[in-house]
């Protein structure tokens, strides 16, 4: 670690509270004027001859060379330091132009260029934010701007535009600060806080600004009437802030998450954060279901059927038995308006009158509302995540991004940091290797070979997946027929199908990994995507065939041995969830713990198994799909899922800490998180909501159980209610007819979808236009840079032309100058060797 870094004493950060390094007003005269000034100076110098005045002139040049911002400042070696740099760089790039060092005036100009003063010192930052707050204020007040402020961040020029009078830079800074305070005070509270927090100034300065702004606000507030609207808004904002800070401070699992991120980095952390997100979705579902369905039905229990079974331990696994006649499943819910409860001990209906509650309607609307709100939350988080990671311009700066953005500051443990350094080193080497031209023996043959291998691997994966899916189809058919023959479903044999499916889900990804290893992808991200798509294909097809089995087979012709098919499907989903959890545990045990012990003791390798983030996240998504599918048939399924996720968190956390190491392959967190949220929204949520909608729309509910018995379809409950409302209340009949014409008419949906597509097309055109503008602007910036270089070299050459006499002096006294400036060479040396 370089502790002995050379710091010049007059570090700009030390002078944080002082003004900008250069006289800003001197900068913005046009170059013509400056050159004219210089030519005047040259004429003056030409009239002098050598001797003491010549000496004085040399001193002046010496002094100029050691330029300081203003006389009161102490000696600052920063300017010539940079000037020397400038010299070296321009010397390298524009060879024929600059043989020697720049003159003092050129250096003066260069050091006070606006681009040098942007955002680096307090004066410039305050100017910049002054203008930003002014813009914000104008935007909020929707007044037409007097001048069009450019969006470039060149505060000095704009500062010059705003006020041309003040010449003293210190008083100018104070005026700027006053302006900033004034602007801040005129913003709304939330804007002001956002601006204050976002300013890159030190905390002491920010506190002072805030104090000044609130002081003035108090003064103005006392004199003017507070608008009651804004007061109300302020209350709302304050309460929102306290609520969100409360939520934030109650962060769940803060310490374990910090430990994980400290040791494994952001990639593995994203898995646990995804788990937390899923937990919140399930908590929401559970609260909704519990309040609107489970609680009322539990308060008004219906008549208990005679053949209710007693509790035996197998229920926890199969979900049948005792559980089938409880609030857990669809079959328990009543299809009438609840207004009295049944006392099971006296076997009679109570006579106490309680508030009535229309159960079928409540069931219908609760499910609809839960899905609708979940959809909105998902789409919102997906679009937010997408917006963060999607970039519209095509240019890549891979190496630059890798250099500056790949260091994970969250990693704390020493070994992990070492691993991270090695990873970055490897990635940089790989990227450099890609840059070098490849010399293949025969690139066409190589490519053909790779193509063949890829095709073969894909073919194998697809074939195996199809085979497994067909296997599940026939096995479920076989089980179905068996159960029909026997007339009832055996308790333990119900577990056969879930076990088979979970086994397939466990073993096939291993096969896919093996195929990917054989294929030997060059790019690690392509490998990740291919693995992800194969797993996804497997899970989607498995879920598809299962949905067909439940909704197509059992719901329609399973009625021989199943009295209540919805409860049966609910139980199936419960079984699937539980068995999936058990298999995940087994996988963690064998895949991670035993593998680590095996490789430690027997193979004696230092490397622990890696935590496969993509596979684990896909497993979570699969489990959540099952939960969403089952909500209609088993309102308490979200509670089961919550328990499962909680246990999974702790088990995975301890397993990861004990058995795994950080992934060696690079993992692009932001992109992968977006992909996972998208996968959660599109195949997972969309699929389950399509299935649920199909179940509600087309399938006949069972006759003897559930809140929709004796109806044609579940949707009819809503329609019935509409009709009932229209009959009871004549003024609501337009609503009923609107419902009949709009919601049930397919034309409405077509038109809606058409408008949606047009909007998407429009936005994509806007994006194309923005891409074009970005390339144009990049060209523009490049040209500006060229202009800058050109002007500087011209300035220097003009200066040199005008002072041929000065050359003689410098040559004569060059030795003296060398003696006088040993410290410059020191600084020069220190700055280059750094």
């Amino acid at each position, binding site marked *: 670690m*370089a502790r002995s870094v050379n710091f010049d004493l007059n570090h700009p950060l030390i002078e944080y509270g002082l003004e900008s390094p250069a006289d800003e007003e001197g900068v913005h005269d046009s170059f013509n004027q400056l050159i004219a000034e210089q030519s005047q100076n040259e004429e003056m110098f030409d009239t002098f001859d050598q001797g003491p005045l010549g000496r004085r002139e040399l001193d002046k040049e010496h002094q100029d060379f050691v330029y300081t911002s203003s006389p009161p400042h102490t000696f600052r070696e920063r300017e010539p330091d940079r000037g020397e*740099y400038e010299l070296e760089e321009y010397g390298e790039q524009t060879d024929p132009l600059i043989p020697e060092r720049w003159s003092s005036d050129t250096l003066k100009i260069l050091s006070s260029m606006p681009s040098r003063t942007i955002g680096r010192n307090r004066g410039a930052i305050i100017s910049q934010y002054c203008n930003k707050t002014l813009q914000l204020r104008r935007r909020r007040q929707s007044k037409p701007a007097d001048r069009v402020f450019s969006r470039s961040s060149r505060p000095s020029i704009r500062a010059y535009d705003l006020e041309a009078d003040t010449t003293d830079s210190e008083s100018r800074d104070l005026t700027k600060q006053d302006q900033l305070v004034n602007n801040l005070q005129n913003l709304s509270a939330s804007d002001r806080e956002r601006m204050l927090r976002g300013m890159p100034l030190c905390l002491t300065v920010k506190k002072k600004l805030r104090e000044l702004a609130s002081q003035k606000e108090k003064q103005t507030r006392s004199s003017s009437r507070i608008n009651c609207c804004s007061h109300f808004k302020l209350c709302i904002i304050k309460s929102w802030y306290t609520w969100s800070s409360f939520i934030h401070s109650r962060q769940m699992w803060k310490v374990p998450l910090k430990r994980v991120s400290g040791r494994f980095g952001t990639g593995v952390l994203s898995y646990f954060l995804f788990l937390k997100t899923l937990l919140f979705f399930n908590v929401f579902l559970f609260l909704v279901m519990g309040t609107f369905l489970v609680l009322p039905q539990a308060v008004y229990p219906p008549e208990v059927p005679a053949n209710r079974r007693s509790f035996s331990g197998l229920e926890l696994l199969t979900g049948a038995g005792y559980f089938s006649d409880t609030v857990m499943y669809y079959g328990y819910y009543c299809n009438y308006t609840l207004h009295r409860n049944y006392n099971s001990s006296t076997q009679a209906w109570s006579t106490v009158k309680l508030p009535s509650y229309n159960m079928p309607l409540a069931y219908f609307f609760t499910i609809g509302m839960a899905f609708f709100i979940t959809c909105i939350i998902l789409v919102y988080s997906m679009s937010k995540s997408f917006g963060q990671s999607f970039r519209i311009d095509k240019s890549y700066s891979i190496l630059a991004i890798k250099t500056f953005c790949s260091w994970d*500051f969250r990693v*704390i443990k020493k070994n992990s940091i070492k691993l991270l350094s090695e990873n970055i*080193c490897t990635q940089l*080497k790989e990227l450099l290797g890609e840059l070098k031209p490849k010399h293949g023996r025969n690139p066409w043959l190589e490519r053909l070979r790779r193509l063949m291998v890829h095709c073969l691997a894909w073919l194998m994966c697809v074939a195996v997946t199809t085979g497994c899916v067909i296997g599940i189809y026939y096995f479920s058919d076989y089980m179905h027929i068996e159960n029909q023959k026997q007339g009832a479903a055996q308790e333990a044999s119900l577990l056969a199908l879930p076990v088979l499916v979970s086994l397939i889900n466990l073993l096939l990804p291993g096969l896919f990994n093996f195929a990917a290893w054989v294929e030997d992808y060059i790019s690690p991200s392509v490998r990740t995507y291919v693995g992800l798509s194969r797993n996804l294909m497997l899970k989607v097809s498995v879920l598809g065939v299962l949905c067909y089995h439940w909704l197509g087979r059992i719901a329609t012709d399973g009625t021989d041995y199943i009295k209540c098919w919805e409860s049966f499907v609910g139980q199936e989903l419960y079984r699937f969830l539980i068995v999936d959890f058990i298999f995940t545990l087994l996988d963690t045990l064998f895949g991670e713990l035993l593998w680590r012990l095996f490789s430690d003791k027997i193979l004696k390798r230092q490397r622990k198994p890696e935590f496969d983030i993509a596979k684990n996240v896909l497993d979570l998504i699969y489990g959540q799909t099952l939960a969403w599918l089952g909500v209609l048939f088993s309102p308490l399924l979200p509670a089961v899922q919550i328990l499962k996720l909680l246990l999974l968190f702790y088990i995975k956390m301890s397993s990861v800490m004990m058995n795994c190491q950080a992934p060696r392959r690079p993992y692009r967190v932001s992109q992968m998180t977006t992909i996972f949220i998208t996968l959660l929204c599109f195949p997972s949520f969309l699929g389950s909501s399509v299935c649920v909608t199909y179940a509600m729309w087309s399938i006949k509910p069972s006759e003897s159980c559930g809140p929709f018995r004796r109806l044609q379809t579940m949707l009819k409950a809503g329609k019935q209610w509409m009709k009932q409302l229209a009959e009871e209340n004549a003024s609501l009949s337009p609503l009923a007819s609107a419902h009949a014409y709009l919601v049930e008419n397919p034309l409405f949906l077509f038109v809606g979808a058409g408008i949606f597509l047009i909007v998407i097309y429009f936005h994509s055109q806007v994006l194309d236009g923005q891409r074009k503008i970005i390339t144009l602007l990049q060209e523009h910036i490049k040209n500006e*840079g060229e202009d800058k270089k050109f002007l500087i070299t011209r300035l220097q050459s003009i200066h040199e032309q005008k002072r041929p006499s000065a050359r003689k002096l410098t040559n004569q006294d060059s030795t003296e100058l060398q003696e006088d400036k040993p410290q410059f060479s020191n600084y020069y040396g220190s700055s280059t060797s750094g």
Partner: protein
Amino acid sequence: MGNKQTIFTAQQLDAYQDCTYFTRKEILRLFYRYRDLAPQLVPLDYTKQPDVKLPYELIGSMPELKDNPFRQRIAEVFSEDGQGNMTLDDFLDMFSVLSEMAPRDLKAYYAFKIYDFNNDDFLCKSDLEKTLNKLTRNELTEEEVRMVCEKVIDEADLDNDGRLSLEDFQHMIVRAPDFLSTFHIRI
């Protein structure tokens, strides 16, 4: 919130809350972390705003920063004296910028300052070389370091002056969605 704490006045806590991305509880927790570094130097009563500065060695020994190769630069950038000796304000500022809620522009600004080793407000070749060496613990060869530096400047330098200014850096950061999640220290 009803808990009586005498470390800060209510106005001080309000000011901290408004100027950083932390809540009251977090500010108090951070204060205790700051104090734990040197209990004999840091008083328990900050109402009179005592002028206490912890030396860099203590800051650099925090578990969150201990093994980070950029810890010295981080401390220097956020300290008032530029040497890494931090007051409580600097400490809070540092962790506020490095927290989850800080916006990208603010983080990009400070990241730029951290990587600017010679403090000339530009990321020149030597800055890049030092950054790379710190990132890879000097594992890359000279040749590789040189090539990477050239390529980085080539990719990110928009106005072709041979080094990266703050705007170039911010433009590049905008295209790196991972930056927000990696430039984050949890405390």
